[in-house]
C-alpha cells in the first residue's frame, strides 16, 4: 500500500488546519452558508435531512487494518456506532456535528486518511478494481497510477471550481469491475506490442438524470503522460463545460453536445502544448510509488484445491460460499475473499464499529493487514491462504459477513435513500431489504445465477440503477413513493443502460415484480445464460408481459 511521506503528511495537516479556520469563520458568521458550502463539501461534509454527513475517502478502495480501526473509532466517538460504504468505495457517517468535523479529520489524518474532495465540484476519490494487484485476469496493476492521480488531483488550483463534480475510475483488468464506462473519465489498461502498460481513456460517461456510456477519446496514452492528458481533458471541460444549468454541467453533456470528435480535437490541441512539460512523470517517481505496491511476502504454497474439495463435499454451505464469495488469486495457494455486507435484512453497505474492528483483526491475521472496498459495497480480503479459507469462513459466519451472495440477486447496490438523504424521493433501503428477504433461499439465489439489482432513491442515481441488470428508481408521484424498473443495464466491459419496463410500482409490489421477472427468465434461459444474456437475446417484451400482463394482474389482485 502507499504510505505518506513528509510532503503528503504536511499537506493533509495543513488542510485540516485550514478547514478548522473555515468552520470557525462560518460559526462566527464571517462566511455565509453559500460561501461555506463548497468549502465544507470539498472536505466531505454534506448537510443531510437530519444531520451533517461526512464522506471519507478510501483511495481506490484500499485500506490498511489500522485505517479500518480508525473508522471504527470515528463511528463510536462521533457518530452512532456505524458507517456506510458507498458505490465510490468511500465510507459515510450520517450523524456528524459540524463543530467536531475538524477533530475527526485530524484523527483520520493520523492514519493517512482524508475527506479531501470526497464531494464538491472537483475531482473526487479515484476508484478502481477492488481486486487490483491480485486478480488472475489482470493485465497490469492500476493502483500506482490511481495514487499518482490522487496526488495530482488533491487541491488542484485550477480545477477546484469545475462546472460540476468529476469522477475518475481505472481498471487494470479486461473484466471491468470498476464501472469505468459510467465515469467522467474511465481508464482501461492495455499492454503494448512489447508488453508495456498504457491506458485507453474514456470520457463522458455518467448516470444521474441523463445517463451516458463513455466514449473512447484516446486508445493509447503512455503511463508517463496520463497526468498531462487528464489535465488537457479537465482544462477543456473547465472552460467549455456548461455553467448555466446544474443539470447540464457534467462533462458528459458537453461531450455529447459538442460530439466526441470535436471534444477530442480540443483535448489533443491542448495536450500537444503541455504533454512534454512538468506534468510528465519522472521515472524516479514512478519507481518510488511502484515500490509501495510490491507484493506482500507470500509463502511458497501448493494449490490447496484437493483438500478444499474434501471440505466442500462435506459441507454444502462452505461449498456455496466458496463458489460465490471466493475468487481466484494470481499467486498459487492464495485466494481473494469477499465479505458480504448484504446479510438479509441489513441495509446494504452498512457496518457497525465492532464489525469494523473485527474485520481489521481478520485482515491482520489472514491477509497481510489489507482490506479492500468494492463499488458494490462489499469488503474484500485479497491475500488469504487457501489453507485458511475454512477457518476464515467460520469467523466470518459469526460476524454475519459470510452470506454467500456475492454477484447474486441479493447482492444489491443501494443508496441511503430518503431515510437519510435530502435529495431522495423514496426510501430505497426497505426495498432492498424486501427483495433480500424474498430471495432468502440461497439455493434459489444460486440457481438464478449472476444478477445485479441496483436501487436509487432518486434520479441522481447514487445506487447506479441505470446499470443494474434490474434497476430500481424511486420516484415521487403526488406525494407517494413509487418504484420504476429498468432492465438490461450493465457497468462491465460491455456496459449498457437499462430500458424502462413500465409504470412505477408501489413498494409492496416490487418484490413480486422482481419474482415475476426472474420466473420469466428461468423459463426463457438457454444453457449457461445469465439473466442479462437472456434479456439481450429476447428483449424486454416477455418481461413486460410477466409484470404487467393479464396473468400478473390476476396474481396481484
Amino acid at each position, binding site marked *: 500500500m502507499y504510505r505518506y511521506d513528509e510532503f*503528503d503528511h504536511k499537506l493533509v495537516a495543513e488542510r485540516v488546519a485550514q478547514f478548522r479556520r473555515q468552520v470557525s469563520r462560518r460559526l462566527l458568521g464571517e462566511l455565509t452558508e453559500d460561501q461555506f458550502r463548497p468549502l465544507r463539501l470539498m472536505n466531505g461534509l454534506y448537510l443531510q435531512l437530519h444531520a451533517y454527513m461526512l464522506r471519507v475517502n478510501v483511495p481506490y478502495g484500499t485500506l490498511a487494518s489500522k485505517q479500518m480501526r480508525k473508522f471504527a473509532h470515528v463511528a463510536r466517538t462521533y457518530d452512532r456506532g456505524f458507517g456506510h460504504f458507498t458505490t465510490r468505495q468511500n465510507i459515510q457517517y450520517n450523524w456528524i456535528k459540524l463543530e467536531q468535523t475538524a477533530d475527526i479529520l485530524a484523527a483520520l489524518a493520523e492514519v493517512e486518511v482524508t475527506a479531501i474532495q470526497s464531494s464538491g465540484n472537483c475531482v473526487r476519490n479515484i476508484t478502481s478494481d477492488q481486486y487490483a494487484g491480485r486478480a488472475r485476469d489482470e493485465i497490469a496493476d492500476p493502483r500506482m497510477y490511481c495514487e499518482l492521480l490522487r496526488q495530482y488531483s488533491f487541491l488542484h488550483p485550477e480545477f477546484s471550481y469545475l462546472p460540476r463534480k468529476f469522477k475518475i475510475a481505472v481498471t487494470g483488468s479486461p473484466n471491468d469491475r470498476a464501472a469505468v464506462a459510467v465515469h467522467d473519465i474511465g481508464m482501461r489498461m492495455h499492454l503494448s506490442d512489447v508488453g508495456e502498460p498504457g491506458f485507453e481513456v474514456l470520457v463522458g460517461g455518467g448516470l444521474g438524470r441523463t445517463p451516458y456510456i463513455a466514449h473512447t477519446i484516446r486508445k493509447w496514452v503512455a503511463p508517463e503522460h496520463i497526468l498531462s492528458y487528464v489535465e488537457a481533458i479537465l482544462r477543456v471541460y473547465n472552460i467549455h463545460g456548461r455553467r448555466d444549468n446544474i443539470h447540464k454541467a457534467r462533462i458528459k453533456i458537453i461531450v455529447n453536445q459538442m460530439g466526441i470528435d470535436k471534444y477530442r480535437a480540443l483535448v489533443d490541441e491542448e495536450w500537444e502544448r503541455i504533454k512534454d512539460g512538468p506534468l510528465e512523470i519522472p521515472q524516479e517517481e514512478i519507481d518510488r510509488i511502484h515500490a509501495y505496491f510490491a507484493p506482500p511476502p507470500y509463502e511458497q504454497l501448493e494449490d490447496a484445491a484437493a483438500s478444499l474439495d474434501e471440505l466442500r463435499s462435506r459441507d454444502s454451505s462452505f461449498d456455496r460460499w466458496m463458489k460465490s464469495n471466493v475468487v481466484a488469486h494470481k499467486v498459487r495457494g492464495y485466494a481473494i475473499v469477499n465479505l458480504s455486507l448484504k446479510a438479509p435484512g441489513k441495509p446494504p453497505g452498512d457496518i457497525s464499529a465492532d464489525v469494523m474492528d473485527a474485520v481489521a483483526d481478520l485482515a491482520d491475521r489472514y491477509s497481510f493487514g489489507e482490506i479492500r472496498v468494492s463499488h458494490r459495497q462489499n469488503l474484500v480480503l485479497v491475500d488469504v491462504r487457501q489453507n485458511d479459507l475454512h477457518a476464515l469462513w467460520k469467523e466470518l459466519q459469526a460476524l454475519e459477513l459470510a452470506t454467500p451472495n456475492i454477484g447474486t440477486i441479493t447482492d444489491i447496490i443501494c443508496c441511503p435513500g430518503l431515510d437519510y438523504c435530502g435529495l431522495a424521493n423514496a426510501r430505497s433501503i426497505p426495498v432492498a431489504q424486501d427483495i433480500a428477504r424474498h430471495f432468502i433461499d440461497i439455493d434459489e439465489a444460486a440457481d438464478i445465477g449472476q444478477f445485479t439489482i441496483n436501487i436509487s432513491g432518486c434520479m441522481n442515481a447514487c445506487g447506479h440503477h441505470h446499470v443494474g441488470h434490474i434497476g430500481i428508481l424511486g420516484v415521487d408521484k403526488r406525494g407517494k413513493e413509487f418504484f420504476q424498473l429498468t432492465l438490461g443495464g450493465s457497468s462491465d466491459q460491455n456496459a449498457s443502460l437499462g430500458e424502462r419496463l413500465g409504470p412505477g410500482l408501489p413498494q409492496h409490489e416490487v418484490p413480486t415484480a422482481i419474482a415475476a421477472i426472474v420466473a420469466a427468465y428461468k423459463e426463457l434461459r438457454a444453457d449457461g445464460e445469465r439473466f442479462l444474456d437472456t434479456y439481450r437475446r429476447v428483449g424486454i417484451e416477455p418481461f413486460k408481459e410477466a409484470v404487467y400482463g393479464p396473468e400478473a394482474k390476476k396474481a396481484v389482485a
Partner: protein
Amino acid sequence: MALIRGNELVADEFAHVADGAEIPAHGPVLVGLEQWQAGRETLLARGAPVGIRLRSDQSPELVASDLPRLALVALEFPKFRDGRAYSYARILRERYGYKGEIRAVGDVLMEQLLFMVRTGFDAFEIESDDPLGQFRTAIGDFTVWYQPTADGRKTAVQLRHPRSRRPSSS
C-alpha cells in the same frame, strides 16, 4: 474595494471604464473586451497603459495577439463558484508567457485566493474589512504543492527527486 498587488495594499492607478462609457483623456485605463476591440488604435495612441477586462465567458485566446500591448488583464469571477478564470490565468502565463498583471476581479473571496495565486494571478480586488490580513493568512495555508504551475513553486515530485531529468515548471 481594496487592491492587493505584490503582497501589499496599493492604490489603483487604472481608471475602470464601464462598458460604453467615455475614455478619460489621460492616465491608465481598464476597458472591456468590446471597447478594446472597437478602439484599439485610439486607446494605444493615448500613450498610457491599457488594461483589458474579460468576463468569464471571454477566453484570453480572443486577445492573444494583443497581449504584448496590454499592461493588465483583469479576469472576472462573476460568482466565486465560476472557476473558468483559473484556467484563463494559466493560459495567459503558461501558453502565452504573459508577464503583465493578471488581476482577479468580481466575487473574489479569501478562501479562493491561494488557488488564484497558484494559477498566475498577481493582483486582487477584495471587498473586506481586513483585506491584507485575509490575503496573508490565506496564502500561508499551504507549503506543499502537488501540481506544477507557472508560479514556479517546486512540487512534491520535484522536491522528492531534485536531480530528475524532467524540466521544472516553465
